[in-house]
Structure formats: C-alpha cells, structure tokens
C-alpha cells in the first residue's frame, strides 16, 4: 500500500514538474503591458527625490538630486494636516457607513420569504453602480442646487433653502452618502453569493429547536459569511487612505475646498495644473501609496493573529 501511494505521488510530482513553455506566450502580452504601464512608472518615482522640471530626463548628467527635500517640504506644507485629516475622515466615515450596510442588506435579502421578489430587489439595488462618476456628480449638482429637488423639498416642508455645494460642511455627507447609494447593492452581491452556500439542513435543525429567524441570522447566516467579511475588512483597512479622488475632483468647488482637498487631488493639482511641481507631486503621491501598503500589511498581520482568513 505504502509503495503504491509513494509511487502515485512520485508520478504526480513528476507531472507537476513537467513545464509547458508555450504557456509563457499566452501570458506575454499581459506581462509586457504590466511592465510598461505599471513597472516603468515605478522607475519614474525617482523624480520624487529630484528637483524635476517638465522636459527633464529622469536620469541624465543634469539631474539635480535633492534627497528627501520634497517630502520634508510636504510635511511642512501648511496644507499637510488638512490633507491628512480630509483624506482620513472621508475614508473613515465612508467605511463606517459603507462597510456594514451591504452585510445587513445581504442578510435581510437572504432571509426574505419571497425568493423571486428578493432576486428582483437585489438586481435593482445595484443599478446605480453603473452610473458614471460624471453623471453621478452631475445629478448631485442638479438635485442639491438652489432650485433643485432637495431644496424644493426643503422649501415645501417650510425649511429654508441650503447651498449644499457652497458649504464645506455639506461636502463629506454628500460624498459619503452618494457613494453608499451607488455601491451598497453591488457590494452586497458578494455576501449573497457566500450566503447561497449555506447548508439548508442547519436552518431546518434550528427551526426544530425553535430558533426564530432573527436568531438564525446571527447563529447561522452571519458565521457563514465571516470569512468573506474579514477579507473585505482587510482590503478596506488597506484602502483607509485612498479616496475616490476622481469623484472628489468633480465635486470640488472653491467654497468647499477646506474639506474636499484630499491628498490625491492635491497631487493632481500640483503635478498637472498651474505652476507644476512634478517632483514634489510625485513625492506626495509616493507618501500616499506607502502609507496604503503599510496599512494593508498591518491589517493583514492583525488578521493573521486572530483568524486564518487572511489575504496573503
């Protein structure tokens, strides 16, 4: 017996070792595109340590190296703490509302008795996911404008009109809630997929034991998606400082800049508009992505300590 098992595994090992070099051709285009558009820009990070003027070569005999000066300049910038605060709070509040809601919605949809209705509702919930950012923000300018839907409703209720895009304190709620509106249904799908794998016998056994539906949600359904939840949790924490800045950029007005300027919109403005400072801008962007990686690795390490559901 032992010999046979050993023989089989040997054969398997040999098969595993047999490599097919033709397969490299299949992956070559993807490899090349990623090299050009992801790895070559990483080489461009060097300009974060240079006094770089548009038109310069990244490496030439005229390159002026400035060490960490660009980073020091950013840390001393009067905008530094505002940028950190705006970026972090936008992510944090977005996470606090946007993370639990899809889980709750998935648990509720899953426990609906009318399965067909549940399916239809689920499909409608994620329609907004496919609306482009431009249209989404455009809709907000229309709805929250001086004579838009929301102000007309406030007016009808006897309240005074409010200039949402001219008040900086309105920016965060608008950004976060519109994001939640757009994506909660989409984010619920992954949990619904995990829930569809729950063994129905567990539910039947629990019903015989006299458990209410609500109790079964917490005792059976929630544990079934715990793994998915923890992986998405790690990913969200890793993204704690990366905002959807393409949307922020569209929502910015001169009046709400105090709350709406985030690290990446600052990178865009410093690097590509007005008086360009590309070395400085790249340094700020690098700071942002390094913090992201650190957060992701810490979240993953923490998860490793408490459970086996980790990303890598």
């Amino acid at each position: 017996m032992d010999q046979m098992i050993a023989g089989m595994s040997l054969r398997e090992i040999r098969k595993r070792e047999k490599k097919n070099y033709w397969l490299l051709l299949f992956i070559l285009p993807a490899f090349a595109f990623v090299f050009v558009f992801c790895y070559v820009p990483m080489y461009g990070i060097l300009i974060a340590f240079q006094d770089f003027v548009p038109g310069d070569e990244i490496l030439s005999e005229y390159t002026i190296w400035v060490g960490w000066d660009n980073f020091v300049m950013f840390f001393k910038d009067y905008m530094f703490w505002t940028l950190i605060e705006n970026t972090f709070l936008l992510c944090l509040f977005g996470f606090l509302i946007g993370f639990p809601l899809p889980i709750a919605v998935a648990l509720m949809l899953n426990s609906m008795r009318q399965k067909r209705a549940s399916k239809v509702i689920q499909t409608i919930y994620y329609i907004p996911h496919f609306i482009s950012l431009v249209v989404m923000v455009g809709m907000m300018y229309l709805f929250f404008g001086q004579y838009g839907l929301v102000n007309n409703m406030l007016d009808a209720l006897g309240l005074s009109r409010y200039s949402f895009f001219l008040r900086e304190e309105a920016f965060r709620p608008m950004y976060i809630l519109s994001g939640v509106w757009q994506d909660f249904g989409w984010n619920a799908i992954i949990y619904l997929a995990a829930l569809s794998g729950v063994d129905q016998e567990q539910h039947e056994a629990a019903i015989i034991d006299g458990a209410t539906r609500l109790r079964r949600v917490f005792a059976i359904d929630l544990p079934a998606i715990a793994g998915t939840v923890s992986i998405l949790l790690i990913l969200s924490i890793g993204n704690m400082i990366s905002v959807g800045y393409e949307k922020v950029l569209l929502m910015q007005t001169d009046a709400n800049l105090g709350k709406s300027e985030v690290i990446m919109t600052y990178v865009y403005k410093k690097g590509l508009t007005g008086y360009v400072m590309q070395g400085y801008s790249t340094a700020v962007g690098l700071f942002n992505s390094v913090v992201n990686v650190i957060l992701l690795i810490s979240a993953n390490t923490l998860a490793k300590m408490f459970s086996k559901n980790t990303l890598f």
Partner: protein
Amino acid sequence: MEQEIIQAAPEGLQKPRRHKKAVGKADRIYYIVIDVILVLLLLIVLYPLYFVVIASISDTDAIFNGEVFLYPVGINFKGYEALLQNKMIWTGYRNTILYTLGGTLLNMIVTIPAGWALSRKELPWHRFIATYFIITMFFGGGLIPLYLLISDLHLLDSPFAMILPYAVSVWNMFMVKAFYTGGIPNGVIEAAEVDGAGSFRTFFYIVIPLSKPIIAVMVLFYAVAHWNNYFSALIFLSDENLYPLQMILREILIMAEKAGSGMGGDATTILEQTKLANSIKYSSIIVSTLPILVLYPFVSKFFEKGVMIGALK
C-alpha cells in the same frame, strides 16, 4: 431559549406548542420589519433615477417651482432637441464607442489567455509571475510618473492613450484565472493533450468554447469601465475632438455649474440661463446612460456571476 425547550420537552406537548407560537409571532414581526426596510431602500434607489427621467421631459419652470415630484409636468422634449443639436455630443458618442470597442477587444486578447496560463500548473516560474502581477495591485508609480511615461511615448492627445494603459486589469485577470481553476475539468484538457493537441489547439478549440460565461463577464466589466472613464481623458487629452462622451458631459453637467456658482451679475439673467441649461442636463444624463440601462436586464445575471467568481478567489 434552547434551555427552555430542553426543560419543556418532558412536560408534554403544551409548552412547546406555546413556544412555537411565540416563534411564529417573532418571525412575523421580523419579516414585516425587513420587508419594510428593503422596500424603503428600493424607493431610495429608484426615486432619484425616476426623477431624472420625469424631469427630462418636464417644463423647466415647473421643476424650478417644485411642482415636479411624482409625475412629469408640462411634457416637452426641448431638452432633448437642444442636446441633439449639440455637435460635441455626437463626437463624444462616436469617440466613446470607438474607445469602448477597441479597448475591450484589446482587453480580451490580453486578459483571457493570460488568465488561462496562470490557471495551469505547467506554467513555468508560476510563483514569480503571480507575484509580479500581484504587486501591481497594491503599489504603483502614481499619477505623475504615468503621465510622464505617456508623454515620453508620444501618446498625449492620441486615442491610444485611452486604451493602451488600461489593456489589462490585474483584478480581472485573476478573476479569469479563478474561473478556469474551478470551471474546467482537468480531464478534458489532459485528454486533448494526450490526443496530441498542442497548447494553442487546446486553447482555441477546447478552452474558448467552454469560456462563454467568463468572456461575457469580462466584456461587460471592461466595457462599462471604458464607457464611464473620464479621468484619463482629463489628463491625457486636450483636443476636444478626441473627447469621450464623459468629458462632454463634464462640461455640460459640472463645469457650467462650477462657473455659475461664482458668477455675479443680474439675477434674472442667471436664472433664465440656468433654466435653459437645466433641461439639457437632465436629458444628457438619460442619453448617456441609456445604453447601459437598456442592456441592464439582459446582462445583470452576468455581472452577478462575475462577482461570485471573484468571491471564489
């Protein structure tokens, strides 16, 4: 509660039955509560969309006076007429269709074979190649180095800047890999290879015909991303004739609004102008989102499938 049942069991049928009744009542309340919440959410999702539709065919004065809430008032199509006379909308539409078709075609040619190769154990240097791709999911050069690269490649103000940098999404590629790892029985592939089919024959005659679901999902994911992309046009293109639809929409929906918010001058003129522009805005939202919404009922099941394949990973 479980303890209660254990205690109750020997005492006969009465107590459990009463317990069952309590469970039934608690469940009825539970179901009513979740139904109400879910229907409320449904209204929150649908009403803004519905409002855009009715506003696009309503009289602008009626919208401004707050008469339009549940149904269109003073039905007219002036917004659509004015919008369709705008030449930029047509150019934008044409460009977006070209970028979406070309971009998605390239995406498929690059992503599907790569995902297939990654799913095979016989791929040489498997660990290195996987790591090579995974790193880019979490770290990149950033905005300015990418811009400098596009500039060095002389792709600024070229339609290719809208396509080439997005030729492959590593997320999607791993989704394809997950599909092949779980979706195609190994025996089929081995049988083909035993019969003497080479890697390419196996791929084109056996793998591709079995890949319809993942191809559908990938086409949809990539096409929607291309259709909705505005940011690369903002940074890479300055020639308006190359602008995709989303950039034209940005002018109509957002830049006009931002300019208006800081504008002084005669209040009534501003109001008239805003009214004029307003119905164009609502109709432009409809016109640009229509292709996706019309396709929606047919493709939604594929989108779900896509996310579920991703969940397997």
